[in-house]
């Protein structure tokens, strides 16, 4: 069952990758990359269970945090034009 779930992760990752390539706006691409990150989290955990080394979930937890932070960084860059190191009032 774990192998089936890993194959389903791969298939839906390919679908999200197609959406990343075709995406009409940049937000489609952000959304698809977020979905790919979630699928990578699941894939790492499932791979650890299939190979008999469930300690891989540590890496998976790290990826979960990085995925969240990365999505918010890209969205902040879209909405304010900077990542917060320069105040936007200085530019205008």
């Amino acid at each position: 069952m774990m192998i089936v779930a890993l194959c389903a992760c791969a298939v839906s990752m390919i679908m999200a990758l197609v959406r990343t390539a075709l995406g009409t706006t940049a937000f489609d691409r952000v959304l698809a990359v977020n979905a790919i990150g979630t699928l990578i989290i699941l894939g790492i955990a499932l791979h650890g269970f299939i190979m008999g080394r469930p300690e891989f979930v540590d890496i998976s937890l790290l990826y979960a945090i990085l995925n969240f932070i990365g999505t918010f960084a890209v969205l902040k860059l879209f909405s304010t034009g900077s990542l917060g190191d320069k105040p936007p009032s200085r530019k205008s």
Partner: protein
Amino acid sequence: MIETGFLISVLSGACIAVGVVALLVGSLGLLRLPDVYCRIHAVGMIDTAGASFIILGMAIHEGFSIVTVKLLLIGVFLFFTSPIATHAVAQVAFKCGVVPVGRNMVNGAPLQKTSKSAPKLASKTSVKTRGAS
């Protein structure tokens, strides 16, 4: 009596199967739906239903150990952060002027740049909302 190991494997397999169905449906929706705001629903399905059920299945398969605690930590983290992420995507997309399908309006004003068949719809909806407000 049914053995406990068989029951655990059946239960974890059922949870992982539900999660796999949610993953496939969500990614199909991500591929096929017409708009950012529609695709957000599909990504929410992947992030909450699919990930939660697959992690629950893995936790049932593992039993009581430190790995289960970490898996449930991942599950709780994903369950709380991915709706926040999709909400932020929707908010930033609306702020940057992405128009939802089926309503050619931005913040109560009709959209200027549309295709050839769209301006009629835009003028109709703008007249309606102006009459209502």
